[in-house]
């Protein structure tokens, strides 16, 4: 046994069982067994935030349900977008009479199923707007941003729209705000070793010993090129210009920073990586604001990490600082600084 699984066909159901059993004070199953919702819904008159996504990337999505972030998650099979009718259930479950923002990480399956779900929801008279999220600089050249994939920088969108929805922002405001966060975000990933599929028990791709793949997607899709850096610092210094020069981030810009682990990389290593990220930002005169380091968007136990930056404005900053009560999202600040 290399993976702690009972029956691959029941894996997603077992995972949800274990989740609602552990965090039942915060989350519960919706009307559909593959939709997870807050235990106590957000007040009526607030915009709901929903997302459908393939599983296997936890804690993202499932773990971020709670006050200040998501209202409902439609949980797909491992690495497979959930079908439209399931996404529709998540939309229904998050509707509190003020419309629903459906977050969509830009991957073919997620987009197609979400769009069809939006059609079904509108046909029922629900008000719903999809927000496509894309931040991976490696997946399409500058100028074709809207052809890029969603990557861990989408975290900034979840957090910011989640906070503002809680405070009562309207659906139109949230679409505008979410688009602004997305357009201010850039991510690049580096993979060191593949994860193991819980369905097949086999590695998800192969990588020549000693090579690091720049631009690996969250399902193991290739991106930019492979490199052979000797140290963490060298690798980060190879990556940072691709991110900084793309927006570009400029001297004096304030940024949110996420160093995200892909699952098989230790926190020790992620902190070593963050040290180099902070050094490069300092050299470039770009000012980090309350960074986040950890494994939030994973690809099973794939080894590697991504670096995401988001250019701040005041509304984004306030939303980043707002409290969250989700089981697996956490970025506290001092109580009275």
């Amino acid at each position, binding site marked *: 046994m290399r993976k702690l699984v009972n029956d691959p066909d029941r894996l997603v159901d077992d995972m949800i069982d274990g989740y609602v059993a552990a965090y039942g004070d915060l989350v519960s199953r919706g009307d559909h067994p593959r939709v997870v919702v807050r235990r106590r819904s957000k007040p009526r008159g607030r915009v709901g935030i929903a997302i459908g996504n393939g599983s296997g990337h936890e804690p993202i999505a499932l773990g971020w349900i709670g006050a200040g972030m998501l209202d409902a998650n439609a949980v*797909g*099979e491992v*690495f*497979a*977008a*959930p*079908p*439209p*009718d*399931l996404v529709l259930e998540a939309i229904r479950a998050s509707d509190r009479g003020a419309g629903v923002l459906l977050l969509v990480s830009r*991957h*073919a*399956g997620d*987009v*197609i*199923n979400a*769009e*069809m779900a939006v059609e079904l929801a509108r046909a029922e008279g629900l008000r719903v707007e999809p927000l496509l999220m894309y931040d991976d600089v490696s*997946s399409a050249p500058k100028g074709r941003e809207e052809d890029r994939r969603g990557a861990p920088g989408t975290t900034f969108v979840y957090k910011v729209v989640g906070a503002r929805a809680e405070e009562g922002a309207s659906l139109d405001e949230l679409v505008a705000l979410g688009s602004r966060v997305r357009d201010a975000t850039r991510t690049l990933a580096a993979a060191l070793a593949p994860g193991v599929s819980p369905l097949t028990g086999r590695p998800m791709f192969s990588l020549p010993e000693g090579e690091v793949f720049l631009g690996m*997607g969250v*399902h*193991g*899709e*290739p*991106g930019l090129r492979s490199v052979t850096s000797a140290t963490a610092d060298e690798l980060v210094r190879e990556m940072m210009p691709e991110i900084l020069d793309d927006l570009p981030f400029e001297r004096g810009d304030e940024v949110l920073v996420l160093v995200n682990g892909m699952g098989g990389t230790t926190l020790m290593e992620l902190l070593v990586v963050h040290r180099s990220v902070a050094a490069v930002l300092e050299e470039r005169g770009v000012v980090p604001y309350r960074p986040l380091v950890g494994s939030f968007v994973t690809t099973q136990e794939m080894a590697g990490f991504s670096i995401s930056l988001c250019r701040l404005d005041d509304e984004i900053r306030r939303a980043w600082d707002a409290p969250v009560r989700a089981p697996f999202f956490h970025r506290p600040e001092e109580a009275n600084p």
Partner: protein
Amino acid sequence: MTADEVRALADGLAQAYARERDVLAQLDAATGDGDHGAGMARGFDRARAATAEIDGDDVGAVLTAAGRGVMSGVGGASGALFASLFLALGAAAAGATTLETEHVVAGCADALSRIARLGRAEIGDKTMLDALAPALDALRAHADDALADALAAAALAAREGAVATVAMCARHGRARYAPEAGVGHVDPGAVSMAILFETWHDVARGGAA
């Protein structure tokens, strides 16, 4: 085709995709993530169950039920797209007790534009559209013929279209990230589309699925 023959079609497709599961998985593994075979098998098993559960002789209703089964069962990029095809056919044939060539032409035409819109794909982008589009052309050319004859031509055209994807560059889906965008490999969704028309033709001419 009667409603019961459409039920037989759903059954035939469930068998065909179960049989081709591993082949489709391997095709998808070459350029994508390898889950296409399992998704189609699971989804069409649901479609078969859905058509068996719905009574009556309205072929549109049975096709719609099949579409719902595909929709909830396949997942991934292709599920919603194959579902769209059956939902469009169901809408075109709503209320009819026999599925005629004209329903199929209208449904496939509608599906082609829906799939292209949902997937933001064009013909030549190495997707299932590259099998569906020539099939639709063939159906149109045989619009006045009996359904079995029109489907014979469509099945041939779909298979040719699928084979021709070997030379195309993927611009959508996960194959887009494959080395050289998958040139040299056929598109699994296009092969699934060819299997669909071939099975349909078999059932329509009264053959064993």
